[in-house]
Every structure is written in C-alpha cells, then in structure tokens.
C-alpha cells in the first residue's frame, strides 16, 4: 500500500479516536458531577 495513503487514513482514524477519548473524558466528568449531586440530594432528603 502507498505510504501516503496509509498516512492519510491513519490520520483520519487518529483524529476521530482522539475526539472519542475527549468525549469519554467529558462524560466521566459529567458522571462524577451527577454522582456528587445525587449524594447531596440524598443527604438532604434524609435530613428532612
């Protein structure tokens, strides 16, 4: 296979993979925030 062709498609998959990893990181941050929110709400509910 032509090395430039390989490089071209490798770049496409790399950029997409990097974006998916970025989304995964964002999603983990969001999950963490929602977890702490859930804990706060549960605590408030028990106190009431």
């Amino acid at each position, binding site marked *: *296979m*032509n090395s*430039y*062709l390989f*490089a*071209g*498609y490798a*770049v*496409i998959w790399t*950029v*997409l993979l990097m*974006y998916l990893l970025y*989304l*995964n990181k*964002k*999603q983990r941050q*969001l*999950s963490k*925030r*929602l977890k702490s*929110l*859930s804990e*706060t*709400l549960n605590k*408030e509910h028990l106190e009431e």
Partner: protein
Amino acid sequence: MSFFWRLGSWSSIMWLESSSYFQQRADRYLKWAAWLLVPLYLVGVAALYAAFIHAPTERTMGEVQRIFYFHVGAAWTAFLAFFVVFVAGIAYLWRRNLFWDELGAASAEVGVVFTTIVLTTGPIWARPIWNTWWPWGDPRVTTTLVLWLIYVAYFALRSSLPAGEKRARLAAVFGIIGFIDVPIVFLSVRWWRTIHPVVITRSEVRLEPEMVQALLIAVAAFTILYFTLLLTRTAMRLQDAASEEIMQAVRERSD
C-alpha cells in the same frame, strides 16, 4: 452502546422542572445516537470497501488518490456542521432558548474535528502530487485554514465568558458571521486561480462512475457519523447544563 445508555440512566435524579426539558431531550438524543450506530457501521464498512476495492486506481495520481473520498466526505460534513451552527445561531437570537446555544456549540465542535481531518489529509495527498505539503498561494487551502481558525476562535470566545445569556448571544452572532467563510471556501476554486482539483462542476463530473459511487457512500458515512456525534455531544452539553442548574438550586437552598 452501553456508553449511551450509561449517560441516559442518570435521568432518574433530574427532577427540577426547568432542567427536565433539557434532560428529556438529552435522553431522546442519546437513544437516537445509539440507533444511528447500526447504519453508521454498515455504511462505514461500505465506504471503506468502495474507496479501497470498488473504485479503480486513478491513472495519473495512483493509489494516493483514494484519500480523496474521505477528504471530501469530511469537508462536506464540516460545511454541514457549520451550517447547523449558523441556523442554531439564528434560532437562538429569535427564540432565546439556551437549547439552540448548546446545539450550535456541539455542532461547531464536531465541525472543527472534521475540518482538522480535511486540513491534515489534504497535505498528505498534496506532498506526492504537488511536491509540497502546504501551497500557501492556493485559495481553497488558505480559506479552509481560515475557516478552522474562525471556529477555534468561536470556542476561545465561549471559554472567555461565563455561561449565560450574554455568552449565548455573542456565540450566536459569531457563528452566523463565521459561516460567511463556508461559501467562500466552496466558491474559491471558481473565483480565483487555483491548483486545487475541481472534479465536480456545474456541467460535468470528472470522475469514473465507480469513483462517484465511492464518493457518495463516503459522504453518506460521514453524514451519519456527524449526526451520531452531534446528538451525543448535544445530549452531553444539555445534561451538563441541567446538572449545573440543579447544583445551583441546591446551593441556593442550603444557603
């Protein structure tokens, strides 16, 4: 698919009236995105088959020409993404609903990703064909780089302002004005002297029928990928906004 369902399952703790609108939309979008994975897989495999096996090898450029199918697919999708930013900007200024702001930001983000693909695959194709990585004098290359910089600046603007009405308004105006570069990129090869190949003109398509088929399948695959990413990212942004709103309400109540 568990990635999408995991995101959606958090909806049970979203209870504030004002946030539930965002949360309901987020849940719906994540379900749609999950369903889009099936056609994305099928059309994606078909696009790879068409680009590497179905389409014949170009006579003068050789194998490296096969970059063209995904390069153009990414370019088309980037244009579509920035058009959605433009429409979302108008919708926000008209309705003043923050949903449109989140949709526009999500689309701009995906558009920047696809423009990055265009700007990296282009030079890889150009090196063996034009004997240069980056022809600075070429209007299409330069205007595409400007397009990428415009939407990177869009995110610089967003991150420099606190979330709220002012940021949404300025981002909407920026997204509308920034879109002006999209028709300039598209028409640059007709307006100015260029070495960029023009394979589709108003009167003819300078490609073999199998090459046209490969291009159309690649465009379809990238379009489905765009909508999958757009729905996912919009849902994540809406959930983020909803959780921030609930957090704020809890803070106010405990003060």
